[in-house]
């Protein structure tokens, strides 16, 4: 559980920075920030499951 929370925190902080510096309007930035956050989480979980099966 701790690992997941740390990953979530990491994704949140990184997506705030990526979202804030990208795009032109506030709405676009918010959408982009959430998109980056979702990508971090999904890719992190996929990688975790892939690595789980690798001894």
């Amino acid at each position: 559980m701790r690992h997941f929370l740390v990953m979530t925190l990491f994704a949140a902080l990184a997506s705030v920075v990526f979202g804030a510096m990208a795009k032109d309007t506030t709405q676009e930035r918010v959408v982009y920030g959430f998109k980056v956050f979702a990508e971090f989480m999904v890719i992190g979980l996929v990688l975790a499951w892939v690595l789980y099966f690798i001894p």
Partner: protein
Amino acid sequence: MHAGTAEPIPGFAWLIGVLAWFVPGLGHLMQKRWWRGLLMGGAVWLSFFIGLAMGGHMFDLNAPEGSSQYLQVPPMIANLGTGALYIISWLLGYGFADDPAQAARATYEYGNTFLLIAGLMNYLTMLDAFDIAVGRKP
């Protein structure tokens, strides 16, 4: 593309860039980009202190035994991105210990990652502040 048509970069923009590196978020705050400064700078500060709280350590040119000094350089550049936070920690000798007891903590590697990412995110923040100062960004 025509050579010599680029507009000169004002000195103010370079100053903003240096200050944005030295104090995370300051470059935006100086240009009255309050929210962006608080969000981006806040993320860097948070990431740095969370990394330290997790027991992570920063890199300098003192290589541990059996390791090359050159291997220290890339992570040191990343850590150095936090500007004053790195320099003050280095002067105080805090956050650079890499002993086995600390490395045994479950959050040790996470801490290292947060500290590295804090610096890299501040490089992005610095470039963003510089672009705003030059007029490339609103």
